[in-house]
């Protein structure tokens, strides 16, 4: 098991290197020069040349990449071009906890709602309730999260005033858990809706399949009641494919948080990403891409490890 985990971790290194190359390359291809934003257009050509030379912007691209990677490996993601004097890692670290909080709470809500519904639907397939849940989950999958978010803000926040319209906390108020949760609940639920819907579908299908297996019949023949049959013998088997799906859903989640953070004005890395993109803050963009990639890779790693723990048939 330990060796499996180590091997699996080592396998993520080439993935990360690949991602770094791609993100570096894409930024190189993007139109608009990095100097355009912060160099005084009035300065002389020599001064500008000196400037480019100083920041290494005249080096061949592979050299720039290697320098950049070298710095990253030392934990230095560079300086923001816009917020002079701020390092990229400072800016990301200031925002990352907000995003992680949002994503984790959102995932917990999605799982806590989707899996029981999926399991319930599977134990009573083709009933009215099952069809109702099915309809809602298709709606959930088909509706873009940002649209649900806009609706939620329009009605629940603005019209009815039940929830704040955005932000992480009420300004100029002392810290209170309740206030934080009040701000968190809407974006977290909205961010999770489409994944909640697809998780419901996955867990239903998977459980339906499992409940038809011979070992479930064995469990019933042993004299266990429905609950024990479904939860002890069914659920663990039914969750195995769901875990794999979770790993695959993660990029979706990170992408979704960019938009949801914008809708709810949630100061996380998603919002930072949007700002950085519009301001062509290249070091910041690259840093954010690397951090997001890292999140995805770590998430998949966790899913794989969980998978191996849940399914004893996996040979390491």
């Amino acid at each position, binding site marked *: 098991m330990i060796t499996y985990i180590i091997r699996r971790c080592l396998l993520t290194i080439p993935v990360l290197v690949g991602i770094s190359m791609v993100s570096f390359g894409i930024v190189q291809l993007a139109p608009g020069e990095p100097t355009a934003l912060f160099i005084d257009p009035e300065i002389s050509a020599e001064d500008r040349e000196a400037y480019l030379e100083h920041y290494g912007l005249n080096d061949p691209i592979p050299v720039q990449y290697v320098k950049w990677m070298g710095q990253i490996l030392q934990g230095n993601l560079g300086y923001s071009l816009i917020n002079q004097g701020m390092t990229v890692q400072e800016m990301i670290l200031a925002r990352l906890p907000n995003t992680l909080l949002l994503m984790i709470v959102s995932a917990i809500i999605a799982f806590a709602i989707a899996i029981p519904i999926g399991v319930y639907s599977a134990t009573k397939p*083709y009933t009215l309730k099952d069809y109702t849940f099915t309809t809602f989950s298709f709606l959930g999958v088909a509706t873009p999260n940002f649209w649900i978010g806009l609706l939620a803000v329009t009605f629940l926040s603005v019209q009815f005033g039940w929830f704040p319209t955005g932000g992480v906390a009420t300004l100029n108020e002392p810290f209170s858990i309740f206030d934080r949760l009040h701000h968190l609940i809407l974006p977290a639920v909205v961010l999770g809706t489409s994944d909640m819907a697809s998780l419901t579908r996955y867990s239903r299908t998977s459980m339906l399949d499992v409940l038809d*297996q*011979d*070992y479930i*019949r*064995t*469990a*019933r*023949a*042993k*004299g*266990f*009641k*429905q609950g024990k049959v479904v939860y*002890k*013998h069914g659920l*663990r*088997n039914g969750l*195995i494919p769901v875990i794999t799906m979770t790993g695959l859903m993660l990029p979706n989640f990170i992408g979704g948080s960019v938009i949801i953070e914008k809708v709810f004005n949630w100061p996380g890395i998603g919002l930072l990403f949007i700002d950085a993109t519009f301001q062509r803050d290249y070091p910041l963009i690259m840093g954010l891409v690397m951090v997001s990639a890292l999140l995805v890779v770590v998430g998949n790693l966790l899913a794989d490890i969980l998978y191996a723990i*849940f*399914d*004893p*048939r996996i040979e390491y």
Partner: protein
Amino acid sequence: MSDLLTIENLKTYFFKKKKVIPAVDGVDLKIKKGETIALVGESGCGKSLTSLSIMRLVPKPGGEIVEGKVNLDGVDLTKLTENEMCKVRGRDVSMIFQEPMTSLNPVLTIGEQLIEVIINHQKVSRPKAREKSIELLKIVGFSRAEEIMKDFPHRLSGGMRQRVMIAIALSCNPKLLIADEPTTALDVTIQAQILELMKGLTKEFDTSILLITHDLGVVSELAERVVVMYGGQVVEEAPIDSILNNPYHPYTDGLIQSVPSLTGEIKELHTIKGNVPSPDQFPKGCRFAPRCHKAFDRCFNEHPDLKAISDSCSVRCFLYEDKQEEEEYNV
């Protein structure tokens, strides 16, 4: 010997989209204490469904016991609530299935799958249940029982898994063990070992067996009496010797003829023409009539009943009904 299980007029139907499928259609069956009965018949004749009906595990949705009694030691199982039935399953009646490869839960250890059933039915602590499980594994032939306890099913061969299933089935000393084609999925040498094991164990535990199979070789090995099913009904019931040497029902005859080793002589292998009719399109008269080489007019219009023709034999066929009536007349 008193009767342990008495099934009377059991009917288990499937209700699918306005279609009624009478898969088990009036089965009568008796098993005495300590006795081994074989239930034989072609694929689809309702053997498994009869056994699942005893356990009240008929596939849902759609399947339902619509009529009949299943008396186990004086208790009608069809009348029990689901909770009461849970106490019977695995304790009074337990079951071994055809597919050892898929009948064990892949994510639980062998030990857990044994311990859980012991704890479920007996008031014992976990360590006690563990001890008992190891003991059971040794009884069914595992010398390294402690290690097997920690193994997951995918590490074991089919024969080993079937041994585990037997250990699970016998863990609470059931009164009745239902074995639904327990050796069909195993290769021949392993089959013999498993049969040997079952034979010995049921003596030791004094358990009755309902053995479902279409292998008459297995039947002659284990069973004392044979019940032959056709089209959801019992067509003949007789002691094993009578079935093998003097089958009454034309279908039983065909079944015996189609097994080469039993008749001893090497002759052309006999097969019964045609296929089992599917339960939703049984013919009006005798269900075997379209395939029966002895069929006569009456067979196509009337449905024969299961009638006793001697102390130990019953048969569902018009050929014998007249004989019996004559005898009655003569007396």
